[in-house]
């Protein structure tokens, strides 16, 4: 446990003193989001005024040193409540705009938000990305009400997305977390979450803030930590997610490394929990699901296949260390005559992921090298998915993802057989009030 407080700036400390305590906190991590952050602030403010008019609330912007005036936009954005038919706003929405300390990244921004939630004794919190274009005031209700009124600890988002949007989620994060922890959380790295005050304190107390979690690993870590700590988890239907394109210079390899690194690290930490789970259960979904048109996504499959094939040739000695002999031989035998073709079937992809997790656990090579060496494999699998779903609707593609999830669950014994525990692990879920030993622990 870490009993030290996360450092905050002097003006923020003064604001916290002045505010005292709140019921609701909404956090917006940002970095150079001047184009969209005003819309996000208006949506959050309207959502709080419309759906939680009598509750003390605070909006926290945790900024990573934007140079485009993002914090000042957050501070001075005004909402025309009258035109939103909101006439009875009963309490003032406080705003805290603060920079964060630590490793630059989304995780560090969240850490500051968690710390402010702890200081203000917030009952329910939500975080939303600053680059959202499709956020509406209803998102605030959907992320917070399950916590305030239904007794849930963690609300994951449920979006409608194009079949080629969120490929790390579809091929890796969703199937793996589902197979490991037995809960079908469709968007475990969605970006928008709701969580209870005690869960925020639990997050804050973990020693992860110098790891991948401080960067893009935060989303998957929050989800796995919530499930593993015995939190009550649900989902809320938010409609379509439309956001500004990610920074084109952002390195896919770095993103993949951070997400997969956080996933594998959580596997080591919670081995005692996931090793006992079998199959998976649906997670309650709040909101009103509806069909929505999603933006088309252009895909350059040839480039992905080219990366994969180069990996198969140039990274052979490294892949041989990471993968089981049988897995590698299957990959090599699948290499067809056509230079643009690539078909990695579900079973083989599951073997690849499980082999990589085992290699990470056994430290067969420097972990950073191992994770980065997975990039061409991931691109090969993504290309395979694109080939397999060409001409299919997003709903039909969803069936393919469901089949992959079943394969992950069915092949879990493959992982368990090869995973050797290094040291006795704590099997007791941490801290939260909904544990198996509690009287109310009915979700296990």
């Amino acid at each position, binding site marked *: 446990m870490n009993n030290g407080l996360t450092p905050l700036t002097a003006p923020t400390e003064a604001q916290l003193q002045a505010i005292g305590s709140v019921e609701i906190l909404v956090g917006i991590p940002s970095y150079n989001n001047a184009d969209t952050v005003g819309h996000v602030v208006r949506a959050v403010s309207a959502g709080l005024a419309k759906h939680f008019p009598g509750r003390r609330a605070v909006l926290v912007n945790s900024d990573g040193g934007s140079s485009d005036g993002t914090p000042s936009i957050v501070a001075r954005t005004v909402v025309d409540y009258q035109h939103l038919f909101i006439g009875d706003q009963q309490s003032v929405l406080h705003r805290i705009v603060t920079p964060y300390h630590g490793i630059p990244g989304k995780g560090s921004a969240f850490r500051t938000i968690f710390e402010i939630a702890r200081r203000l004794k917030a009952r329910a919190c939500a975080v939303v990305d600053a680059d959202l274009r499709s956020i509406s005031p209803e998102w605030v209700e959907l992320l917070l009400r399950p916590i305030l009124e239904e007794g849930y600890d963690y609300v994951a988002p449920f979006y409608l*997305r*194009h079949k*080629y*949007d*969120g*490929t*790390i*989620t579809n091929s890796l994060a969703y199937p793996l977390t589902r197979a490991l922890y037995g809960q079908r959380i469709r968007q475990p*790295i969605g*970006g928008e979450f709701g969580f209870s005050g005690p869960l925020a304190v639990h997050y804050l107390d973990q020693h992860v803030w110098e790891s991948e979690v401080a960067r893009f690993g935060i989303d998957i870590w929050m989800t796995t930590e919530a499930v593993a700590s015995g939190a009550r988890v649900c989902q809320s239907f938010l409609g379509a997610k439309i956001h500004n*394109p*990610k920074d084109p210079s952002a*390195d*896919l*390899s770095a*993103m*993949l490394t951070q997400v997969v690194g956080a996933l594998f690290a959580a596997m080591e930490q919670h081995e005692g929990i996931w090793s006992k789970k079998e199959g998976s259960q649906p997670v309650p979904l709040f909101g009103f699901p509806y069909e929505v048109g999603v933006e088309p*996504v*252009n*895909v*350059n499959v040839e*480039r992905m296949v*080219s*990366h994969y094939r*180069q*990996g198969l040739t*140039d*990274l052979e000695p*490294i892949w041989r260390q990471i993968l089981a002999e049988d897995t590698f031989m299957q990959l090599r035998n699948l290499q067809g005559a056509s230079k643009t073709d690539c078909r990695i079937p579900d079973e083989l992809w599951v073997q690849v992921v499980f082999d990589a997790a085992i290699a990470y656990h056994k*430290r*067969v*090579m*420097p972990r*950073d*090298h191992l994770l*980065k*060496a997975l*990039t*061409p494999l991931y691109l090969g699998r*993504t290309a395979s998915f694109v080939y397999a779903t060409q001409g299919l609707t997003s709903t039909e593609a969803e069936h393919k993802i469901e089949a992959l999830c079943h394969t992950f669950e069915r092949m879990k014994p493959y992982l368990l057989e090869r995973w050797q525990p290094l040291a006795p692990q704590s099997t007791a879920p941490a801290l939260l009030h909904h544990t198996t030993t509690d009287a109310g622990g009915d979700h296990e």
Partner: protein
Amino acid sequence: MNDFINQALLGPLELLGRHVLTVLPNVLAMGIILLGGLFAAWALGSFAERLFRVIGFDHLCDRLGMNAALLRGGVKTDPSRLIGRSIYWTVVVLASIAALGALNLTPINQFAQSLLAYVPHLVTAAVILLAGYFLSNFASQAVLIAAVNAGLPPARLIAACSRWGLQVLAVAMAMEQLGIAQHIVVVGFGITWGGIVLAGAIAFGLGASDVAKEFVERRLVARSKPSAADDLHHW
């Protein structure tokens, strides 16, 4: 007659006896030091070998590619045993030098002193070589993965260059530490690298100017016109 026997025969014998009596303690001391040294060498070598085996040094070397490198060099002994034997022979050599020093003979003392003074350089050179080897393996693996992820076709060549570059640098530094033709090493290193770069540049310029032109054009065009549409959201 008695004088003759005393002076011509017994005198030298007495002198020899006195010499022997003078040297005998030193010889005995040499023997004791040598025996003690051999025992210490055996004990330390065995202990070190077991210790390294227990802490999983062989496994670590395997992961770092040391075992494979040793096999490539025809060494089939595992690293723990190698370290044990190295310690054994180091102690034996040191004990031998100390034992020879016990004879208290000027030339041997001088030799022993100069040899002992050289030991720190030997150790430093060995450390440099080992560190260079590990660093070159680590760096070349990182370079290879980064180059493949960046889609650079000569990824393996780039990785090999980084490995050999670091290893050559380590060898040059180790030789400098050993005092072997210090200036020749530095100058030779500069000439070799300069020559390689110049030869590469000339060869590429003369033999592959079209490839270079095409490469530069492709890079510039790719930067100015991102024609390969791909807005896949991996996230």
